[in-house]
């Protein structure tokens, strides 16, 4: 496989054939290779091991380096960039503490299969293993949370390793790849040969579904009366939203998505059931419980979706499409598996699909939607968090990119923001990383300067990475942040209320929360505190006009509000709890 490159690069490559190869340092080869990979942005933080590389960056015009405020934020920002665009996020950090600070961000990306390439500085090769200053065995530390990793000790192999890493990170089931760069290697020189043939004998992901299985699938789907399509993050990663939508419409089947699948199917469509699982809609969970055919599309039957495996969707035949064979049949037995890329499998399958006789089923579902809608009670005294999301959904017409943190607010976003486009909902689903929201929103705004990007975070998680506001100010990034300030580690508080007799052990934040408005202003952001609906609408209007710096809205919301529906951990549909009417 030949590394793809832009026409200009191609041209310069052929020019180079005529002249002798350039002799470049490792640091220069690093930059050339990144440019060749089409990288336009690096999220990074310098240090001793990389100081010479940063000197080259100083002069580099072809790509920009954004100085983040903490390396964890750098990885989440790169992750947000990747989720919003599909392009790999690129991170550059120094050795030792710089490298270890990336661990949470790498694990977050790994769990959600996000393409990312992380470059870590390393002490000089001859000092590795000596407990040298700022040495950490980052390959060892990150091996279980990377798709692959390399130690680039030999400058002659650097370009090859970089191109392999981008290839691995972005193909098959994507994921983070880490490259450790010893300081002496970056300084040593070699002849640079840009054209690279990627040869990875142990890595040949299956993209096209087997012809026979696709034919079988078309037959398998016939005759279902109560089908449900269950769409996960794989559909987004595969850029298959259009194919998924066509599939569901042709089949005449309702669609439920996982947290990471939100946006793969327009929630404004009648066939949309919203999210399923622990905090999914009543009707999505009911439909999965009763259906006779369940089609998993890039979804892995995670425990937050299935609850008690024995009682999960007990009446259905199951089909699963996934690019990762190890995801198929891992938790739930599958009658018809197809290994392949979602987009390419559906492109084959859609033309031979037959419509299901599901009209009665769809009527039944419409009835359920009426009887058991998502609901919450408004109050005159205090803003409800759901109300804030609903308002934002209206103001932005479901077209904003929303990054969430982790907690109650994350579930309210998933329930109340009506996503209409893929790559618009960025959330740490697998690892559930508090601190993800602020930097991920920042990274998405960097990637998509023309979209409205809003990071909606809790008052707890906000404080884990709030320092990245400094980064947004530094580069005039007009990303918006909304703190749903309930004075609690709300999600934990909810469990304590429901399952631990209201013993609120270590979840109250109010006495020590800072004044978020002042905090944000001290960074140079535009900020406002909001307590009423009028103020909220005013704040939304104002924030849309700000284009040269970040915005922080501290929205004071009901402390008692809980996320419903809820199926308790390891429960099943019969255990579902709904909000009071």
């Amino acid at each position, binding site marked *: 496989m030949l590394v793809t490159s832009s026409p200009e690069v191609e041209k310069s490559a052929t020019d180079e054939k005529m002249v002798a190869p350039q002799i470049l340092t490792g640091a220069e080869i690093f930059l050339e290779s990144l440019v060749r990979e089409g990288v336009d942005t690096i999220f990074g933080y310098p240090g001793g091991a990389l100081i010479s590389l940063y000197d080259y960056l100083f002069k580099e015009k072809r790509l920009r380096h954004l100085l983040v405020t903490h390396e964890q934020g750098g990885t989440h920002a790169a992750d947000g960039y990747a989720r919003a665009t599909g392009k790999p996020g690129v991170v550059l950090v120094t050795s030792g503490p710089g490298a270890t600070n990336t661990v949470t961000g790498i694990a977050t990306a790994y769990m959600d299969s996000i393409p990312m390439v992380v470059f870590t500085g390393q002490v000089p090769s001859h000092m590795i293993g000596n407990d040298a200053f700022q040495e950490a065995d980052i390959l060892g530390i990150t*091996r*279980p949370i990377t798709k692959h990793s390399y130690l680039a000790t030999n400058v002659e192999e650097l370009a090859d390793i970089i191109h392999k890493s981008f290839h691995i990170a972005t193909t098959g089931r994507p994921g983070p790849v880490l490259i450790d760069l010893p300081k002496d290697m970056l300084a040593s020189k070699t002849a640079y040969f840009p054209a690279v043939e990627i040869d990875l004998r142990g890595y040949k992901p299956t993209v096209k579904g087997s012809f026979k299985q696709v034919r079988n699938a078309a037959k398998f789907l016939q005759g279902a009366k109560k089908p449900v399509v269950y769409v996960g993050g794989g559909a987004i990663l595969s850029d298959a939203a259009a194919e998924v939508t066509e599939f569901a419409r042709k089949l005449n089947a309702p669609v439920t998505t996982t947290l990471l699948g939100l946006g793969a199917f327009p929630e404004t469509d009648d066939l949309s059931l919203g999210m399923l699982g622990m905090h999914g809609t009543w009707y999505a969970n009911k439909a999965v419980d009763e259906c006779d055919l369940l089609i998993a599309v890039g979804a892995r039957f995670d425990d937050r979706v299935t609850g008690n495996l024995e009682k999960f969707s007990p009446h259905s035949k199951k089909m699963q499409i996934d690019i990762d064979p190890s995801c198929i*049949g891992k938790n739930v037995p599958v009658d018809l598996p197809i290994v392949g890329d979602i987009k390419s499998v559906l492109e084959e399958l859609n033309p031979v699909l037959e419509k299901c006789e599901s009209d009665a089923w769809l009527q039944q579902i419409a009835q359920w939607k009426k009887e058991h809608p998502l609901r919450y009670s408004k109050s005159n005294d205090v803003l409800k968090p759901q109300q804030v999301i609903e308002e934002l959904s209206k103001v932005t017409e479901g077209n904003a990119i929303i990054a969430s943190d982790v907690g109650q607010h994350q579930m309210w976003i998933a329930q109340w923001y009506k996503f209409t486009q893929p790559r618009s909902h960025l959330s740490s689903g697998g690892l559930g990383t508090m601190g993800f929201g602020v930097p991920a929103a920042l990274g998405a705004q960097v990637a998509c300067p023309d979209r409205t990007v809003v990071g909606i975070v809790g008052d707890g998680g906000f404080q884990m990475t709030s320092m990245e506001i400094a980064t947004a100010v530094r580069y005039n990034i007009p990303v918006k942040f909304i703190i749903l300030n309930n004075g609690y580690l709300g999600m934990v508080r909810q469990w304590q209320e429901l399952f631990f007799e209201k013993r609120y052990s270590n979840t109250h934040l109010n006495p020590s929360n800072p004044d978020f408005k002042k905090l944000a202003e001290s960074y140079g952001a535009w900020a406002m505190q909001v307590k009423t609906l009028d103020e909220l609408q005013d704040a939304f209007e104002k924030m849309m006009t700000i284009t040269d710096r970040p915005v922080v809205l501290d929205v004071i919301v009901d402390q008692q509000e809980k996320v419903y529906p809820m199926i308790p951990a390891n429960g099943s549909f019969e255990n579902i709890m709904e909000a009071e009417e």
Partner: protein
Amino acid sequence: MKHTINLLVENNVGSLLRIAGMFSGRGFNIDSISVGSSEEEGLSRMTIVTHGDDEIIEQINKQLNKCINVVKVFDLTGEAFVHRELALIKVQATPTERSEIMQIAEVFRAKIIDLSPTALTVEATGTEDKINAIISMLQPFGLKEVSRTGRIALKREFQGVTV
């Protein structure tokens, strides 16, 4: 059920660490693991003996296939294959006990490869059963040290004719 899985992997420490880490991280069992060079430069052949129910074994095979530095995975179980283990067994032996130990070794077609006034070292190859048996036979003399390689295996070239 016991499974013998034969792998061709890139010849570097990273491969071994990734594979061993995958087993421990996912809670799979390793009964034995042995690795050395293969017929091809740059590739090592690794034999892993593991056990688990069918679903676990299926996951193990799939997860091994996912490792970037694993080039090939063959689960030999269910096929005809040859396998051997090598053991070095250092046994306490007074000069009067020597001949008895040598007789035992002979029965097992093992060799004496080192000798001292108080001990001798036996080299045995064979299936695990055979190695277990010779070790039990030598146990009464006093085992000083035992080193076993774990199973190495290859598919049988001629699988026989089914009638």
